[in-house]
């Protein structure tokens, strides 16, 4: 049995279904990210696991025990876990007392524990802050204190609810590195929620996608990023060129799809007549002038609508009968003299087009 698993976990608030039959398994020692848009039920799920709320139905098993059993002592279970909330709450006392609070409630606050707290403050980069009033900390510092407070008892499971939302990039990086460090050095099992797919890719070994209260896909970050299970997930993970179309014919594994009157060839077994959603990663689209001589099956003549600098890259939107986004380096955009109104060829391989059956509306 997995280290932590939920079985048909449900949470309702009146008529609203916050979580619908969620079956999740997390193994010991892994970093598992729950991703999903705001309101998907990520916080609800983590609060249920931390026994802060009671589920409407279903069970949670933690290290072989059914912790949702009402006869179980919730305090004992919680003392093996820790949680970092999206909005860090600090007690109105010193930084030291905040970090030491979980030790205090467990009654173990001896000399060794004290030096452990100081060590942890050094680790999170707040070494000289022990006596500071926690209320005077910045958001990023407060979140680091919350993280230190969570790991000070060396829990078996760390739950983190969007721990880096609204923090500056430097602090985000630091918190991610700390989490990975605790996971590596102490074998800490981590379940974190995030709406940032890239963060999940950086930190997590596995990802579960939660949408509208349902766990719709679980897998390695790359699997979800490159092969999202449906158009909703594709949109969420940042797929840009999401188009609707119909398969006109299928010639031995190459589907010809009509998208707004243009034909696109894609690797797919879907038969003629199927309504599909396709998406093409912008980095797979090559722009050229004149017509390309490459092996790409799709070569569409189109007109550039906009060119926007995006760090070292440029996002070019071209009108091919449908808007198509392409990513080119700033240098090649300048060399090709890409400007709105210019005609170019957009080409991409049939294998670069992901095809999914349309989701019923």
């Amino acid at each position: 049995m997995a280290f932590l698993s939920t079985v048909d976990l449900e949470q309702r608030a009146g008529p609203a279904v916050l979580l619908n039959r969620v079956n999740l398994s997390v193994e010991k020692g892994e970093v598992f990210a729950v991703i999903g848009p705001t309101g998907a039920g990520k916080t609800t799920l983590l609060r249920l696991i931390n026994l802060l709320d009671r589920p409407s139905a279903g069970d949670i098993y933690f290290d072989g025990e059914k912790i949702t059993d009402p006869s179980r002592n919730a305090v004992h279970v919680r003392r093996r876990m820790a949680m970092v909330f999206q909005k860090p709450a600090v007690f109105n006392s010193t930084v030291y007392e905040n970090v030491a609070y979980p030790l205090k409630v467990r009654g173990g606050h001896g000399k060794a524990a004290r030096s452990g707290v100081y060590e942890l403050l050094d680790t999170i980069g707040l070494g000289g802050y022990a006596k500071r009033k926690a209320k005077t900390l910045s958001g990023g510092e407060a979140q680091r204190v919350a993280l230190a407070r969570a790991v000070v008892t060396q829990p078996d499971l760390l739950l983190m609810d969007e721990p880096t939302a609204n923090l500056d990039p430097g602090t985000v990086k630091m918190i991610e590195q700390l989490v990975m460090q605790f996971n590596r050095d102490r074998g800490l099992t981590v379940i974190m929620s995030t709406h940032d797919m890239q963060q999940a890719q950086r930190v997590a070994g596995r990802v579960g996608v939660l949408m509208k209260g349902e766990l719709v896909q679980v897998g390695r970050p790359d699997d979800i990023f490159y092969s999202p299970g449906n158009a909703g997930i594709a949109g969420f993970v940042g797929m840009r060129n999401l188009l609707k179309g119909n398969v006109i014919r299928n010639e031995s594994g190459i589907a010809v799809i009509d998208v707004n009157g243009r034909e696109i060839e894609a690797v797919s077994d879907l038969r003629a007549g199927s309504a599909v959603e396709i998406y093409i990663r912008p980095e797979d689209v090559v722009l050229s002038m004149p017509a390309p001589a490459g092996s790409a099956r799709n070569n569409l003549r189109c007109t550039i609508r906009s060119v926007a600098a995006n760090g070292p890259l440029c996002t070019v939107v071209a009108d091919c009968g449908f808007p198509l986004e392409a990513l080119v380096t700033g240098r090649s955009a300048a060399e090709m003299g890409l400007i709105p109104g210019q005609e170019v060829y957009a080409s991409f391989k049939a294998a670069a087009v992901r095809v999914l059956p349309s989701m019923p509306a």
Partner: protein
Amino acid sequence: MQELWQALVQAVNLIVSLDPEVIEISLRSLYISAASILIAALFCIPMGALIHFHDFKGKRVVINVIQTFYSLPTVVVGLFVFLFISRSGPFGGLELLFTPAAIIIGQVILIMPVLTGMAIGALSGVDKAIRDTAISSGASSTQAMRAILFEARFAVVGALILGFGRAISEVGAALMLGGNIRGYTRVLTTAISLETQRGELVLSLALGIILIGIAMVVSVIMNILLQRY
């Protein structure tokens, strides 16, 4: 204006010369009001916590009733307690009437609604995330309650100072239940009332200034203690 100035000078004189009667009356005022607030706090803060932390039917009504009793007139409390402890009342046998204990009983009843209501308000003012953080950190429900009370400490101490102020400044219950017996139940407010009736306006004003001074010292000490935590 002249009288106010004289009163100020006399108040300073009375304090500096350690006038035995004034010192005695002041200390009695302080002792009775401090006892009242301590006893009331012992009941009211847990009661406020009980009401705040539990959801029950009619909670809103209970809070409304408590808040209504903020304006309980001191003479009504005095009359009410008088009926209970007078010789013919149910507790007449305890012979409490016209003792300092009777004043304390009256003042405790007087400040209980304010203290309970303010304790509920203080606890409601604590961010809900504090409770989650405490519980999630492994606190038992009692430990979490203590953490929340600790977070609310500034507002709770504010309520204590307010209750103390209401106790030390009231005259109705002290007069009806204590009887203003010289050397036994005379407190600052009853002394002021008496001296005013006797036309000793400057002495009355001086006693008033001493009363305000005591309230100020108590508030300052409480705040200094609070700053340390």
